[in-house]
């Protein structure tokens, strides 16, 4: 028993040490979660330096002691590294741009597949209006539109993915609403598509207006504003309906085609995109009513203004490029210099707008060169699925697409 007791001492000792190092780890990490996190973390090891290597009195330190201290110091560094690793995965850390640069690629949340906006092709390459906006942001940061990783998110998972830091931004036909902006703590960079909710039905139902849908079975994606608009619309018109909640657009398509629901409702752009993938699109009709305003746009987390500015002005650069006639084809020509100072400022041949964003002066050039201007994107992805410019024309042509000036 006594012998055990003797050997028990060191055991107890290591326990205490482990416990202490554990608490140390916890405190460091805790400190890092606070806002001014990085500074103390990186500052800690150098602080230990003078006391070990240069003794204040100039006396030679006892070797054994210094060794132990060195070990301690190493431990601190290791713990610091662990804490830093933990930190990079934590929520709401400021400096998203730094994180993205350090990581080497942009993490962009997109839909699980909506032709025209973001959908993978046979090779797994994502294409679409939203997907290319992600590429534009990646190009603005890295000068390379391919430094982006797409994360498919559903209507339900998108906000959690963004808030938790799993993605850096969402470009995923998300409606800008008060609660999402204010209560859910997101920042919308602007509107890249003015949409509204509509209804699609089979032609042979003989329905010509949404007002005739009393008693219908309606397929709807859960976790969207459309779900709430639908409830309000039917309630205010005194009609009944049977909602069939569905997780993704693909499931909705399957159920709608099988006739498990009479009506599919989502944003009109989404309806057009879905209809375009049907075998016989002409058997289906989109009803004339638009029951809501759905301004769709890219968004990021609240509280990192540098990052949301970057997204906002990348979007504005694409919009201004169309307005000023900058296209991916003539951009190299224009970059040699023009008489229009705004074009010069955008393309970085004049002023230093890029530096203000924390980017190269070529940022907007890279973005526009990579994916084309707003109009080019629209023509490439949204025209083929049957969407016309409508509200999304440039303001000069009577639409709502309008960028603040680059000045």
């Amino acid at each position: 028993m006594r012998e055990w007791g003797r050997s028990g001492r060191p055991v107890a000792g290591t326990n205490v040490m482990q416990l202490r190092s554990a608490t140390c780890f916890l405190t460091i990490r805790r400190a890092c979660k606070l806002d001014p996190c990085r500074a103390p973390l990186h500052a800690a090891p150098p602080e230990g330096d003078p006391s070990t290597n240069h003794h204040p009195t100039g006396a030679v330190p006892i070797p054994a002691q210094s060794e132990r201290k060195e070990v301690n110091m190493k431990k601190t560094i290791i713990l610091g590294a662990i804490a830093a690793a933990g930190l990079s995965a934590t929520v709401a850390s400021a400096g998203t741009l730094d994180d993205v640069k350090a990581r080497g690629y942009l993490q962009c949340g997109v839909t699980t597949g909506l032709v025209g906006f973001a959908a993978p092709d046979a090779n797994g390459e994502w294409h679409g209006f939203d997907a290319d906006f992600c590429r534009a942001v990646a190009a603005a940061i890295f000068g390379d539109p391919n430094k982006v990783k797409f994360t498919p998110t559903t209507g339900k998972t998108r906000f959690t993915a963004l808030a938790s830091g799993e993605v850096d931004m969402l470009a995923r036909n998300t409606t800008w609403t008060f609660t999402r902006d204010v209560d859910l703590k997101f920042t919308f960079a602007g509107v890249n598509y003015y949409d509204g909710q509509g209804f699609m039905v089979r032609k042979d139902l003989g329905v010509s207006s949404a007002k005739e849908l009393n008693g219908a079975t309606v397929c709807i994606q859960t976790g969207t504003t459309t779900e709430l608009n639908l409830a309000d619309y039917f309630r205010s018109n005194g009609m009944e309906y049977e909602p069939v909640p569905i997780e993704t657009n693909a499931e909705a398509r399957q159920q709608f085609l099988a006739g498990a629901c009479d009506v599919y409702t989502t944003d009109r752009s989404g309806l057009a995109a879905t209809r375009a993938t049907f075998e016989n699109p002409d058997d289906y009709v989109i009803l004339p009513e638009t029951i809501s305003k759905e301004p769709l746009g890219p968004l990021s987390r609240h509280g990192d203004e540098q990052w949301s500015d970057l997204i906002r002005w990348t979007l504005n650069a694409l919009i201004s490029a169309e307005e000023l006639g900058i296209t991916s084809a003539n951009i190299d020509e224009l970059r040699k210099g023009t008489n229009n100072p705004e074009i010069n400022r955008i393309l970085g041949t004049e002023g230093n707008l890029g530096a203000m964003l924390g980017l190269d002066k070529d940022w907007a050039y890279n973005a526009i060169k990579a994916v084309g201007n707003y109009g080019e994107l629209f023509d490439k992805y949204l025209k083929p699925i049957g969407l016309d410019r409508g509200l999304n024309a440039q303001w000069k042509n009577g639409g709502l697409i309008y960028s603040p000036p680059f000045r």
Partner: protein
Amino acid sequence: MAMAEPEGAPKESFRPSMLIYDTRYRAITIQVLVLAGVLALIGWLVNNTLHNLEILGKPLGFGFLFEPASYDINQRLIEYNSRDTHLRAAFVGLLNTLLVAAAGCALATIIGLFVGVLRLSKNWLVGRLMTVYVEGFRNVPVLLWILLTMAILIDTAPRPAAFRKGEASMLFDAIAITNRGIYIPEPVFSRSLGNIHLFGSSSLRFDVSLDLVAILVALIAGIIASILVRRWADRVQEETGDRPTTWHIRTALVVVPPVLVLWALGFHLVYPELKGFNFKGGIHLRNSFIALWLALSLYTAAFIAEIVRAGIQSVPKGQTEAALALGLSGGQTMRLVILPQALRVIIPPLISQYLNLTKNSSLAIAVGYMDITGTLGGITLNQTGRELESIMLLMLVYLAISLSISSVMNWYNKRVKLKER
């Protein structure tokens, strides 16, 4: 070995060091230290979470539960509309969870019992078929079975429109099987007693149908009367050796009172009718419910079948032989000798299967069945952005349901377990 202290040795007084060196106290010391460590860790996690939520500007709060939910739910056992609160929506979801769990447990037990017994059948084909069923179902994830069942229901059944065109017709003019679910006749009372409203106008209010209460009271009274008759028959048998024939009296006692009550209430059926886009009237069993219910039942039944088989095989063969030697028939042997003993082995693992089924019902969203995971943990969570609160409530709800099922089944287990005298 510490116990081997010679008697009469001088009694040591307690010293702090004994907490480490004395085996009598050491175990306690270590446990106290570990407990303190675990508590500290939990405390830190909670504190850290609250702190970070504070930074995010989303302090923990449950006020959102009392905001209007603003969404509709298709299957609701209680009255609900989009202006009701999130709490009410969660309650609707909870009842849907309980419905599919209860129906699932019942069907799984019935199927499991039959398959388990039949798997031991001497008939080669029956035995093999049951083996195929058990191995097929329990070796494929339940989510796939749910999705497959849903796909079959949607793609094979006719659309409501097909009934109008005459391409499909109703079963017995009463049941309509469509790709949106099955519509069955609904019992209606023309002289209804009405409902009792419980909990006023709060979010947890619900109505109890007095008609249902009356029928249940009549049924239970009949069953009690029937038991009294049986006891009387037992007494007569003990005194005279002759058992009076009672089955017709007992059947009448159970059947007649509910039927009388039904007649008094003006019971009749309302048949589903095709009106507009869908069938109206009758009870609508939605595809989502049927798919989830069938898939969960068939999946869990495969496990229950194995449990039943193990239970039966745990009863020594001598018991069967003895029962047969006494002149009991095969059915009587199973019912009176083997099953009562097998139940002791069957019940404990059966509890786990019930719990599994209930928890697996949270896969409901895969087919759009609005259970509590779909309402509180799905739409409410998404529309309010209160992830932590919603998920914590959800976990609490499942914990409460599971513990309730366990306690009921444990009570039943105590009743059937071997009485040691």
